[in-house]
């Protein structure tokens, strides 16, 4: 659900730190009908112009706190990502992205809080790699967006 709206269209920007472009960021939304417990948020499959950026180079910013790695989010059992809030996904990439239109293939992975998916126990030790469809909540397909980098 919300397949076409998981990335805000005008949100793709490069990230500058100490005068250097260190990556890019995107505004992202929940692919579900209710808010999500942050500990279950398991990262993104994100492929930009054919290049996959794994969870290890991703950070997620929500609730007014600085961007956190998915390793850090793993223990946020009592923090919520509210249903109608936009989060920001940061991806490390030296030099960032070129200006212009980019093809982004995208899937969010938030593990199911009911705990009845087949892989749940295994996922505790070994979370699925986003993009396999596993843990993808209510949007189990990879969605392709064409998005222009604005700054």
């Amino acid at each position, binding site marked *: *659900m919300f397949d076409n709206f998981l990335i805000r269209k005008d949100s793709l920007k490069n990230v500058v730190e100490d005068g250097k472009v260190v990556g890019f960021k995107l505004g992202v939304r929940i692919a579900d009908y209710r808010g999500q417990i942050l500990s279950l948020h398991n990262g993104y499959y994100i492929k930009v112009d054919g290049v996959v950026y794994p969870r290890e180079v991703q950070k997620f910013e929500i609730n007014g706190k600085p961007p956190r790695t998915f390793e850090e989010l793993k223990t946020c059992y009592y923090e*919520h990502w509210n249903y109608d809030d936009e989060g920001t996904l940061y991806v490390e990439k030296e030099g960032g992205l070129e200006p212009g239109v980019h093809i982004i293939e995208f899937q969010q992975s938030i593990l199911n*809080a009911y*705990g009845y998916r087949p892989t*749940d126990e295994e996922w*505790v030790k070994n979370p699925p790699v986003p993009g396999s469809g596993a843990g993808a909540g*209510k949007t189990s*397909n990879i969605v392709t967006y064409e998005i222009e980098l604005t700054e």
Partner: protein
Amino acid sequence: MKTNSDIKLGVSLYSYQDNYYFHKHDLEGCLAAAAGAGATGIEIFPEAMIPEWPYISDSFIDRYNGMMERYGLETVCVDHFADRAMHKNKLLTDDELLERSIWYIKAANKLGATHIRLMHSAHLGRLLSMPGHEPIDLVGPELAGRLLPYCQEYGIVMALECHSPTSVDDPVQQAYLEVADKMGLSEYIGLQVDFSSYEYCISTADVGMYSRQGVNRDFLELIREKQREAYFSGKEFVFEEVEPELRKIGFTDEDKNSLRFVLRHRAPASYEKLKEFASQVVYVHGKFYDIDEDGQVDNMDYPKIFKALIDGGYKGYICSEFEGNRRMNDAGWCDEIEYVRKHHVLMRKCLEMYK
């Protein structure tokens, strides 16, 4: 606007999830829309539309109650979730799940609600499980029994939602009622009908969604036609009987897998049984996905469902639960407010018909 009946009409705010998600309407806007459709009752998902959940402040409660007063609404139901796996590294124990479940009961009381929808283990008629894995219990009969004294204290009834593929007449539900009976607390628990049990064919909303996801529209329309033929001639839909015709026009195993939830469906649950169990029902989800040009829900027999509930003596709320939004919004804006309005016109007609 009150109904002239023991059955009252409301709206589950689930129906307006796109309006809220895309910030077209805030909570007050959604409440106003429900009142505008003629509803007098509201169902609310705290995890969607109460950002403070689970620590709801008094100032929120004041504002909420003020809005309900302004729009002539009462809270009927708060949706309970049993998030057994919320910790990621372990499942919640029964004690932990009990504690969280009490939060919903207390919140329901503060919000002026009469019911919570309990996410019980038999929500789908059986324990949630997948091949090769232990089934996971959400709220079983024993845990429900432990919640009953809290329900009594806070004046809240637990509604056991019986969602497709199960229905209220499934014997598995009775274990919950028996626990309450033994404790002398029967008035605090009952069955909840979800109209998904009474679907007789794939909805046009699903035809659109699956076709945009790449399934050939001709396959979907043929399946829908055959399901309707079966229903209106009083037969079960058996996919295997239709499969050769579909294969001839190019239907593949991949299509079969994409449509597995649609194809296993054989017939709606029994209206006769619905009538028989209506007196044990404490709440109803008026589920729908699409409304056709005649104002009817396109894949459920509303007049028959309403007749069964009325003849069986159901007294309480039916709340619109529009689920077309998530099936349609990939094609553009889905006017949930208009859908709910049409749904209320249909429900009022059904109430009038069997007065």
